[in-house]
């Protein structure tokens, strides 16, 4: 029986190739999206869970209260690990990490500029599970000046040779021996790096007993820390022990309140409490992604239901006959469901192939920053998931048509009365409208995302971002002479101005808590972010000085001691402090000499913060040069020549400030690209459905069209007659979609402090463009039907 059904279903699919193709392709596309969505969710969910000890690894973070301001950070002092391990027996081992920043690596004559090196304790290789290509976890990073490469970096430097035992020269830190090569950490891992350097090297030759004192814990907090807990040791037990530790060593140290916290490694990606901002971004992205995928699957199922019930009149006769020759209601439902399952199975195969094509040939993986692949055999959840999709979609999409068809009375169907297109029309129209609601919403939301990103890129940030070249000097010897280099740069004919600073927009500031003079004259502790930049910085960056003056001289350590530092603050700080006359106001180490107009140093997701700026006391590594826009190429040549004279043998690495800033919004751009892709898929699937349904209803009205044409109706009037109804549906969909979309837009924009207004424009544009596409879809067929010779359509009967 099942084989006969199978054969008959497949034949049915091939008989009506046009509708079947639309059905299989549409549903296949929906299933492909669903598969990709599942892979994505699996990838997010399994983030860091692949480590065998994942359940026992915890990230350490610190909540500190300084001057009334409480903040949580995921970095701490290098002493926290060793001290806590000694105090708390439940800690099996600690793993400290530190970012090596932008760093120069030399192998013989080759030099490589690298960004993703981590300083790490050996536990990174033993507590976490990394698969070794060469070497082994036990002797990975045990000694000073040893390092472990990832496979991709090893390949880049050494090709296919085994590099274990070879040496690499690391800028500022001397030669390192390579002790192992590991597979690149998967993109879903929380810790991303291209190479690991032994952490102990950082404290080589220093007295660690003196350095690692509890009293130092609240300073120099630049390192990440992870613990491997002993089996059974819990976060609650840790918290209790940590309080004991605090009470014993830290409580008396200073006025700073310090609270050590831990969170499971597996929570970091989606529900971190220590870095909730990023986790919220990840979780929200996952939510949107999953939602969109389900919507698309829904759209595809709607097509299936609509086409199947629309074709009911064709099927009705067959159903009637089957009842006459003895089929029961149950047998028919079973038959129709089986048919739906067979059909979905075909669509599933198409979906797997489409998913593979999408992942391999479109930039989707790149956009979402993953490496998703459809491997039903090696991915343990894929086969069960595919089976589940099959049954759920097959039954869901098949259920309504099956009961709808099986319910038809045989007497009526054989008279040709039941199963007419009128039956079930309401549900079909409702589903079609729902489809277009989703499509219009997706298109409008995409347009808004594009608009917001345009706004972000076009917004006046309060400083110059075009034609600013940033060169970073990292090597210690060069850094000491950075001012000389800046002067060289300034002397290039193409350079308007050049300045040194310790940060550039997008990198963020370092915060400092100092005492500041309030408007009533007393001194009060405030934590404000700060920037160190020389007196050329405001001119180079076109930051407007609106009160007072620029720095009169470079700053020095002596200024610090004599409390004679010059400080420039931004308007926001003035407002926060409530100063009437900011110039001359005191702070712990000096005096305010100037006020600059507010500028956006942080991404536009955040509000402008109160910032103070001092001249650098230590050499500032970022040299920014504002260059003339008309001779960029020559100017870059000149800069290169000066760099080579200044730092022979070091590669000339520079970035344009506007590109650096654009990089801040990659996450938003990623969302926008994805939204565009999905809006396109929504539109495609909906129009496929509309196309099929229109072809069907129009096919049903062939005779009517023939009669009207024979009576002298014009081509245009027939096209309007046929298309009118579809246009009305899409208009209705617009009316429903707009308020819903408005809410979704508000939600999305909430992540930006600075937002483009939601105008009626995006709605109109989305509505009209979807309407046009829909009209085009329908009119192709209306015109064809209307142009057919009326005699042909009337001859039958």
């Amino acid at each position: 029986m099942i084989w006969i059904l199978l054969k008959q279903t497949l034949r049915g699919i091939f008989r009506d190739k046009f509708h079947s193709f639309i059905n299989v392709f549409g549903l296949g596309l929906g299933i492909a999206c669903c598969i990709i969505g599942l892979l994505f969710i699996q990838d997010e969910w399994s983030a860091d869970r692949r480590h065998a000890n994942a359940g026992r690894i915890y990230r350490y973070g610190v909540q500190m209260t300084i001057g009334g301001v409480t903040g949580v950070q995921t970095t701490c002092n290098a002493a926290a690990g060793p001290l806590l391990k000694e105090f708390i027996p439940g800690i099996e081992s600690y793993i400290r990490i530190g970012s090596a920043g932008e760093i120069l690596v030399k192998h013989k004559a080759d030099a490589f500029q690298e960004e993703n090196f981590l300083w790490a304790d050996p536990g990174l290789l033993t507590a976490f599970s990394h698969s070794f290509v060469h070497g082994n976890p036990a002797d990975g990073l045990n000694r000073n000046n040893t390092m472990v490469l990832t496979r991709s970096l090893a390949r880049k430097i050494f090709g296919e040779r085994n590099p274990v035992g070879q040496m690499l020269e690391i800028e500022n830190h001397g030669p390192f021996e390579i002790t192992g090569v590991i597979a690149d950490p998967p993109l879903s891992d929380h810790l991303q790096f291209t190479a690991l350097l032994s952490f102990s090297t950082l404290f080589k030759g220093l007295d660690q007993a003196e350095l690692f004192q509890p009293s130092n814990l609240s300073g120099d907090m630049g390192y990440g820390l992870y613990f491997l807990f002993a089996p059974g040791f819990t976060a609650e037990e840790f918290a209790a022990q940590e309080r004991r530790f605090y009470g014993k060593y830290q409580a008396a140290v200073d006025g700073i309140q310090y609270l050590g916290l831990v969170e499971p490694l597996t929570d970091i990606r989606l529900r971190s409490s220590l870095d909730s901002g990023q986790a919220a971004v990840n979780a929200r992205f996952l939510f949107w992604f999953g939602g969109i995928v389900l919507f698309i699957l829904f759209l595809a199922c709607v097509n299936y239901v609509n086409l199947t019930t629309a074709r009911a009149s064709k099927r009705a006769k067959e159903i009637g006959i089957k009842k006459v020759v003895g089929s029961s209601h149950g047998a028919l439902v079973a038959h129709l469901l089986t048919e739906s399952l067979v059909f979905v199975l075909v669509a599933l195969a198409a979906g797997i192939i489409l998913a593979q094509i999408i992942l391999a040939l479109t930039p989707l993986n790149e956009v979402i920053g993953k490496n998703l692949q459809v491997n039903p055999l090696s991915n343990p959840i894929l086969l069960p998931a595919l089976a589940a999709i099959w049954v759920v979609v097959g039954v869901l999409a098949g259920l309504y048509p099956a009961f709808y068809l099986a319910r038809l009375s045989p007497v009526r169907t054989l008279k040709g009365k039941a199963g007419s297109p009128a039956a079930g029309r309401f549900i079909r129209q409702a589903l079609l409208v729902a489809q277009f609601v989703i499509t219009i919403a997706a298109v409008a939301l995409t347009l808004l995302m594009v608009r917001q990103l345009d706004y972000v890129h076009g917004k006046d940030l309060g400083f110059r971002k075009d034609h600013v070249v940033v060169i970073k000097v990292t090597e210690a010897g060069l850094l000491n002479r950075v001012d000389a280099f800046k002067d060289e740069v300034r002397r290039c004919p193409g350079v308007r101005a050049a300045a040194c600073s310790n940060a550039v927009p997008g990198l963020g500031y370092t915060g400092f808590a100092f005492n500041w003079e309030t408007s009533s004259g007393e001194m009060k502790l405030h934590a404000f972010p700060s920037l160190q930049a020389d007196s050329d910085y405001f001119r180079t960056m076109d930051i407007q000085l609106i009160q007072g003056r620029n720095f009169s001289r470079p700053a020095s350590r002596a200024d610090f001691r004599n409390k004679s530092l010059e400080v420039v603050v931004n308007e926001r700080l003035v407002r926060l402090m409530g100063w009437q006359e900011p110039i001359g106001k005191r702070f712990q180490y000096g005096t305010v000499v100037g006020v600059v107009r507010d500028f956006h140093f942080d991404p536009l997701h955040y509000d402008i913060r109160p910032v103070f700026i001092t001249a650098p006391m230590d050499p500032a590594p970022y040299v920014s040069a504002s260059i003339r826009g008309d001779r960029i190429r020559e100017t870059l040549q000149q800069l290169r020549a000066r760099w080579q004279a200044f730092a022979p043998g070091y590669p000339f690495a520079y970035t344009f400030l506007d590109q650096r800033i654009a990089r801040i919004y990659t996450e938003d751009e990623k969302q926008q690209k994805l939204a565009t892709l999905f809006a396109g898929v929504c539109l495609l699937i909906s129009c496929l459905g509309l196309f099929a349904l229109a072809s069907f209803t129009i096919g049903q009205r062939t005779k009517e069209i023939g009669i009207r044409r024979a009576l002298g109706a014009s081509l245009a009037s027939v096209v309007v007659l046929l298309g009118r109804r579809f246009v009305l549906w899409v208009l209705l969909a617009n009316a429903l979609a707009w308020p819903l979309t408005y809410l979704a837009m508000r939600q999305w924009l909430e992540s930006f402090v600075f937002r483009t207004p939601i105008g009626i424009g995006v709605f109109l544009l989305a509505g009209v463009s979807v309407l046009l596409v829909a009209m085009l879809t329908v009119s192709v067929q209306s015109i064809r039907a209307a142009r057919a010779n009326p005699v042909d359509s009337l001859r039958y009967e």
Partner: protein
Amino acid sequence: MIRLRDITRYYTNGFVKTFVLRGVRLDVAEGEFLTIMGPSGAGKSTLLHILGMLDATSEGEYYFHDIPVHELTERRRTELHQQNIGFVFQSYHLIDDLTVYENLETPLLYKKVKAAERKSLVADMLDRFGIVAKKDLFPAQLSGGQQQLVAVARAMIIHPRLILADEPTGNLNSKQGEEIMALFRELNRAGTTIIQVTHSEKNAAYSHRIIHLCDGWVTGHQLAASG
């Protein structure tokens, strides 16, 4: 074999009841060949559908071999229908998407007949109706007469005790019609009970007995030429 008592069938249209059958009383004996005649709209097809258990009565009693059909559940009715009744229609009603072979096989599938037996039953029918050569064709590839032949074969394949035929020759030319009627007579002689609806006196002449239906009333009984 069949006992109808005061069968009434009406359709409710808003508040108006339209009567199609009124108090029909009819007995049909096993092995009979009965003709139902009457003007268009008299309720002939409706009566046939009720006899074939495709349609339910509004009032009245229907006994099939003393089983009260009007009291049966849907499932039992389907079963009874499946085992005993074959249908033939004016417009053949073959399934367009199935071949001749598959059309013949369909009733057997619903009766859950084993594959091997199905095969031999279908082969028998093809042979008996002389359509072996056509078994892989689709209905649209056959003439009207051939399609009706297949329809009769399909009705016969479950060896029904009752065949219901609604104007089986209505769409056929007279020669094809005669062939079908000859076939019916032959089947009837072999023991199958047949009830046909027809407008043609010539066809009616093949049967034993004629009843006249007018406006839902049985208006007359008459013995046919062969009866």
